[in-house]
């Protein structure tokens, strides 16, 4: 018998809000977390704006020991641990310093870990100072650094690992944790993803000219998904975390249940039929979405809201066409569609997790967040859906089903279906 999987805890570290209540406020009010960064300008970046969460020294000290913070320089691990510990505590689970919890694990993804720490290490190495690297380089630069830190902080005894699938990482992590609980291999999985901030991570994208360079003097207007004037994404960073739990375990603990993970799908376009390292195979995208709908045993016309990947590149209209084909319903039955990236930029490996947290918040609070900077919707999009399907202002509305998808370099796709839980 397959287990039902529910969400009992949330945590987030986003450019426009650290912690669930700040992030909820920002989502409701369409607040952008994008700022100008002099450091990028000094390094001759074309795009000098980005989203960096504001984490104070005092905040860090609440989550990490002084010893852990000594020579600590990995922003992704910092964001990931804060979001994940918040999700754990939010679900009402205790932190036991003595016991190992063999029923709880984590799948916490990232694209790359501790790039600044790695840079530090390379300078020392090239200066023939390998001996002086100290003990902290490996744990902060290994891909699984974030899950390893979390495993220790929480005493997790089930699977402790990190997944990586570019910008679909976060959504994939949710589905991997979901499968594990569904199949009875774990009672609880802390899932999500994180991404470093800064020039050493964002530089490669700037060089590819996929980030916008036209909004350096008005940063909050830079991230323009679905807009006529979309000209590339704005880089972001941070982390999102969800505590997934079997329904049995949640009921037994009398935990508050925010939503249910009904199902989902991951696949790849194989870099065939229009798919490449950087571009999606549209057939595979459609297949991923329709498989997710089938896996969740829902009718496409019952979806209330789509939280799209929608990065603000020239690919946005194609994504909308893919949703339409995958849902295969009349245009007037098409659900609302939104892009959280309009407020936080493209948080890369963290995107799927932060945007999934945004989706659950909207489910549990009953509103649709605005997509900002989309005053003029792209004409190719208006050819296929009505403008009313893209709320530019918040709508108060009880929601039942949300579909969330993320796509990544390597032609990989992930789509998950969340349902409001009725106690």
């Amino acid at each position, binding site marked *: 018998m397959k287990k039902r999987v529910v969400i009992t805890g949330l945590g987030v570290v986003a450019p426009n809000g650290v912690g669930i209540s700040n992030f909820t406020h920002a989502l409701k009010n369409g607040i952008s977390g994008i700022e100008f960064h002099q450091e990028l300008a000094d390094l001759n970046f074309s795009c000098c704006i980005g989203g960096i969460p504001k984490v104070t020294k005092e905040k860090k000290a609440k989550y990490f020991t002084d010893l852990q913070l000594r020579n600590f320089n990995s922003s992704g691990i910092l964001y990931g641990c804060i979001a994940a510990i918040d999700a754990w505590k939010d679900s009402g689970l205790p932190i036991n310093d003595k016991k190992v919890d063999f029923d709880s694990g984590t799948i916490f993804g990232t694209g790359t870990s501790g790039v600044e720490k790695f840079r530090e290490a390379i300078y020392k190495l090239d200066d023939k100072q390998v001996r002086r690297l100290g003990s902290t380089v490996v744990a902060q630069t290994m891909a699984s650094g974030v899950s390893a830190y979390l495993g220790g902080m929480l005493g997790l005894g089930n699977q402790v690992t990190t997944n990586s699938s570019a910008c679909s990482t976060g959504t994939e992590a949710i589905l991997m944790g979901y499968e594990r609980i569904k199949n009875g291999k774990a009672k609880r999985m802390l899932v999500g993803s994180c991404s470093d901030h800064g020039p050493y991570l964002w530089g490669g994208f700037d060089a590819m000219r996929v980030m916008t360079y036209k909004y350096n003097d008005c940063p909050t207007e830079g991230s323009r998904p679905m807009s006529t004037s979309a000209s590339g994404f704005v880089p972001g960073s941070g982390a999102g975390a969800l505590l997934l739990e079997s329904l049995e375990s949640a009921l037994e603990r009398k935990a508050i249940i925010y939503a249910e993970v009904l199902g989902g799908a991951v696949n790849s376009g194989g870099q065939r039929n229009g798919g*490449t390292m950087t571009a999606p195979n549209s057939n595979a995208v459609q297949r991923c979405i329709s498989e997710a709908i089938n896996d969740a045993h829902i009718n496409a016309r019952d979806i209330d809201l789509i939280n799209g990947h929608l990065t603000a590149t020239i690919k946005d209209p194609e994504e909308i066409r893919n949703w339409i084909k995958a849902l295969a319903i009349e245009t007037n039955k098409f659900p609302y569609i939104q892009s959280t990236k309009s407020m936080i930029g493209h948080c890369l490996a963290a995107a799927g997790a932060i945007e999934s947290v945004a989706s659950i918040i909207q489910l549990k609070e009953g509103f649709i967040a605005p997509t900002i900077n989309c005053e003029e919707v792209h004409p190719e999009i208006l050819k296929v859906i009505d403008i009313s399907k893209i709320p530019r202002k918040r709508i108060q509305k009880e929601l039942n089903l949300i579909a969330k998808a993320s796509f990544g370099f390597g032609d990989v796709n992930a789509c998950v279906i969340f349902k409001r839980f009725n106690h």
Partner: protein
Amino acid sequence: MEKESLITSLKRIVKPYIQDEVAFVNLTKETDFINDLKINSANLVDIVLDLEDEFDIEIDNDAMEKMLSVKDAIKIIESKLAEK
């Protein structure tokens, strides 16, 4: 620089990135990098860097956005060379 030799240099530079041999053999000024030569749009960035090295010029973002065909590339290279 003569147009013919410019096209010869350009052909040599784009050759590693093309995915349509026939279009490449029949390359004219009207040839489009993405639609005809089937170059992956991500590789246009690399072509720009190779052109910068070859001609010792700098091709800015605005110019690069306009560089979609052989004709566009020649125009941009000529104007950048004239600025030198």
